[in-house]
């Protein structure tokens, strides 16, 4: 009788562990790239998208900028973002999104200095290798200069009290006229994220 009982327990434990093993594992699924669901108070994808959309909307509809882009597409360049937050953030990703949206608006053209080394190499080959027809070869010193510079500052203010973490982000962007030094446009996007630690549940 005892033996049967022990056997039953062993079989039960084995079956239970098998069931649990079957349930364990990682589930992978696609998510919405435009989701606004915050996971933490750290800078996230939704924050990046909100900043890019808000600042591009502001710039393209600012009356002096509307007037400026009414008849021509000014040439711009983007400066590195001054990251004053305590986080390691790929700020180039933010300016890349802003630049892509501005180009897609059909209102601006951009100069990209990050690919200059490759461009110089290519022009050198065109000029010096003897492979390229001189009539179609690109010459040095013919590129356009930027008229405007897009500059940005990114800062955060973090406060902690008890189980509450409050983070305030501010992304400020300006459009500077390189000839006159005048800021033609400037705006900022603010984001506040609050995390509360609860004793029970999630």
């Amino acid at each position, binding site marked *: 009788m005892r033996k049967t009982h022990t056997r039953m327990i062993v079989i039960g434990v084995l079956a239970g562990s098998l069931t649990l093993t079957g349930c364990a594992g990682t589930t992978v699924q696609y998510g*919405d790239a435009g989701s606004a669901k915050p996971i933490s108070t750290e800078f996230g994808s939704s924050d990046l998208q909100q900043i890019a959309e808000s600042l591009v909307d502001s710039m393209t*509809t600012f009356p002096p900028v509307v007037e400026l882009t009414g008849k021509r597409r000014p040439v711009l360049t983007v400066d590195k973002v001054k990251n004053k937050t305590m986080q390691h953030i790929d700020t180039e990703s933010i300016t890349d999104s802003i630049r892509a949206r501005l180009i897609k608006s059909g209102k601006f053209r951009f100069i990209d200095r990050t690919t200059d080394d490759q461009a110089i190499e290519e022009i050198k080959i065109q000029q010096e290798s003897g492979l390229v027809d001189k009539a179609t070869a690109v010459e040095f010193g013919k590129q356009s200069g930027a008229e405007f510079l897009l500059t940005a500052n990114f800062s955060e203010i973090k406060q902690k009290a008890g189980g509450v973490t409050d983070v305030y982000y501010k992304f400020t962007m300006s459009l500077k006229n390189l000839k006159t030094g005048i800021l033609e446009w400037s705006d900022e996007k603010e984001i506040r994220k609050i995390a509360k630690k609860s004793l029970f549940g999630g």
Partner: protein
Amino acid sequence: MRTRLALACVMVAVLGISCGCSTTGGLEATGTTAWNDEGARVLAKRVVYNSGSLKGDLEVVDLKSVLAGDLMRAQATLRSRDRDTLSFEYRFEWFDLNGIEIGAGSSSWKPLILIGNETKSIQASAPDPRAREFKLKLREPEQ
């Protein structure tokens, strides 16, 4: 007795499933550019509620559109019908003259917080000058 027990199990299961999944239905407010007999630009408006609870919480007071140069700019005025603070998510989508979406999938959801009985305006501008129609999508936050 057994039938009752089975029925109770099914009801519990259904309740469990419905609690586990959040409803994705929200509201869609569309503003389409049209021209009246005098040739003036007017906005044809349409608001569709896909969620009964959202209809009770929120009212679309007005939809407006202006041109900033040749870019269409939209504004939706929303009013909370609740006394508590409510959270939503919204996004604007843009369509050209032929109803083709511009930059499909490139607009992201943005948070919107309305305190009790507050009226708030949300704005967005078109990604490029082709836009003739906007659609505001608003929903309860993802769970």
